[in-house]
């Protein structure tokens, strides 16, 4: 019987009914301390430190602080030091502040090559779905489950349903993977993928680079999806080839990986099609990622919405965002621009943003910041001179971390500040209490920084 990629991955990892073996467990400082405490309390070791990898990302300052012990915020410092201590005690490799391999957990996995096709990957972070871009089954878990995986290398899981979204056609010039996933979530809603492992397929997906595929899988959770995945192909194999953790028997591995894609005729619980060529640059207007419109559109009018729940949510969102219905999105003027996060902080994202700002100046009304996803992205960008492009345009050039995506470190919005952000969540207060977030692609964020308001980058020069 023809199988989906998800079915193959699930069955290859089922230890017993509903117990799934985990090939890679990524760990960071925020969701792990209580899990390590639990192990100590029960006297349990970490079963497979060799399948576990840790980094410090959520809390770390991006201003050049070189070591965990130098973090000014006491609680953040304790959390990062606790991670270092726990990893030492349990024998887990850790790339903390100061390591040349430190960075956002979902950036460093693919970068080191530990993210590979056919694997099961978990992390105490909802954006673990990112790794599905390699044809892996990857999803976020809570702290109790982190402890469970540390102790058993397995996870008790209810088998999700399967969904396939087929993207016909090609993305138009100036339209990016970020726009594709925002448009998809806009159509399905933030709960539209709940309970499903979602496979993104079709020519528009196959044409994408790995960073683009990662952006799409990353935001699966914003549609409520359990996992996002894309079939591995030559693009995937070439990304993994030569990386520090790439398999020694690479050609043998490729032969195995070639068996992973969904079989012809495999059945999905839910299937839908989207015309990729009809997608435009997108901007969110509200307080969840499903509240999104094309940049050429206006802020929607809640009065035109059918469901009372939607109407009420939209009214509350517009009040929070201080936007009036009918305002063209191109008149919305952010004072802050953030280019970074596990969604859009890879070298390709930075290249695209740099291309937009090269030779220009950030508008006087805007404070703009670039936070590379990892130390290695930072080094690569500097080798290409991207830091100079950003700096001379008036951007701040920072160290690697999650930074203003969630503002656990000092990079936050002030009350009422409006931000064009390449991150993944525009929830109330996400980037700082009272802060107003508009999610966009790196190109759109860069152009907004220059103009001081959103522009349709398709006709911007």
């Amino acid at each position, binding site marked *: 019987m023809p199988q989906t990629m998800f079915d193959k991955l699930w069955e290859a990892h089922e230890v*017993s009914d509903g117990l799934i073996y985990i090939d890679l467990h990524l760990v960071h400082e925020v969701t792990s301390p209580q899990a390590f405490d639990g192990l100590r309390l029960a006297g349990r070791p970490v079963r497979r430190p060799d399948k576990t990898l840790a980094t410090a990302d959520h809390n770390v300052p991006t201003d050049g602080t070189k070591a965990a012990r130098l973090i000014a915020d006491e609680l953040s410092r304790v959390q990062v030091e606790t991670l270092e201590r726990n990893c030492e005690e349990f024998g887990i490799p850790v790339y903390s502040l100061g390591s040349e391999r430190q960075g956002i957990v979902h950036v460093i996995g693919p970068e080191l090559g530990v993210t590979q096709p056919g694997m099961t990957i978990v992390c105490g972070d909802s954006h673990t779905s990112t790794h599905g871009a390699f044809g892996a089954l990857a999803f976020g878990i*809570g702290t109790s489950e982190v402890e469970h995986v540390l102790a058993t290398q397995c996870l*008790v899981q209810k088998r999700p349903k399967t969904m396939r979204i087929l993207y016909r056609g090609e993305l138009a010039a100036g339209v990016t993977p970020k726009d594709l996933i925002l448009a998809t979530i806009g159509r399905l809603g933030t709960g539209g993928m709940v309970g499903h492992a979602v496979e993104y397929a079709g020519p528009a997906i196959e044409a994408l680079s790995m960073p683009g595929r990662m952006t799409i899988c990353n935001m699966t959770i914003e549609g*409520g999806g359990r996992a996002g995945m894309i079939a591995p192909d030559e693009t995937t194999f070439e990304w993994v080839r030569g990386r520090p953790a790439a398999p020694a028997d690479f050609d043998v591995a490729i032969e195995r990986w070639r068996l992973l894609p969904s079989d012809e005729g495999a059945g999905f619980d839910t299937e839908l099609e989207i015309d990729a060529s009809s997608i435009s640059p997108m901007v969110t207007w509200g307080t969840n990622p499903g509240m999104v419109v094309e940049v050429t559109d206006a802020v929607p009018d809640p009065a035109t919405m059918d469901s009372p729940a939607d109407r*009420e949510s939209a009214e*509350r969102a517009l009040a929070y965002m201080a936007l009036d219905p009918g305002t063209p999105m191109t008149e919305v003027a952010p004072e802050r621009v953030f280019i970074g996060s596990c969604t859009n902080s890879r070298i390709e994202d930075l290249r695209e943003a740099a291309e937009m700002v090269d030779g220009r100046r950030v508008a006087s009304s805007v404070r703009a910041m670039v936070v590379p996803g990892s130390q290695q992205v930072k080094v690569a960008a500097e080798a290409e001179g991207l830091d100079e492009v950003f700096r001379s345009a008036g951007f701040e050039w920072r160290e690697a971390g999650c930074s203003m995506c969630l503002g656990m470190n000092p990079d936050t919005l002030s009350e009422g500040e409006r931000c064009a952000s390449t991150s993944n969540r525009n929830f109330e207060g996400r980037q700082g209490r009272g802060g107003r977030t508009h999610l966009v692609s790196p190109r759109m964020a860069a152009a907004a920084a220059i103009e001081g308001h959103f522009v349709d980058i398709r006709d911007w020069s």
Partner: protein
Amino acid sequence: MRPIDVIEGQVSVLDRADVDTDQIIPKQFLKRVERTGFGEFLFYDWIRSGEIRLEPNPILVAGRNFGCGSSREHAPWALEDFGFEAIIAPSFADIFYANCTKIGLLPVILDEEHCRAVAEAGEARIDVDDETVNCAAGVFGFEIEPDVKHRLLGGLDDIGITLENADAIDAFEQSGAAERGPVTTAL
């Protein structure tokens, strides 16, 4: 985890859809390395601004897609620490639902109409074994996975249960299937 069989008492209501975990427990409170003490920060901004009021009753009735967003278990920790023992909603985000069942905070899925009825009744009795919610408006059935129910009723440690299966994990690892992946300690 303590065993749960019946949860009974007054109902608090949060009639909003898509309530995300950033609202349930804002990020500035995730820096603690302990598991306790999060209740006072529950819905920090909404409660401080007077936007909502919540009594720490045993039962919370919420809107659809409750707990969407981040995987932070701090969200169920905060709800439990505040005083809630069960949350009734038309739907939950997947990770949030799983996190609740791991700590013994009972997530109950009822359709919107029944959620409204429980909210209006103001009091309810939830029987885990029978999978029913009983209130002045009637008795409503709900579903819960058999293994989750077994664990909740017994107050059982998930890890302990899995480790009883250690032979199967050993066998899986010895089959070689598990050993193809990268070795992080060799990097």
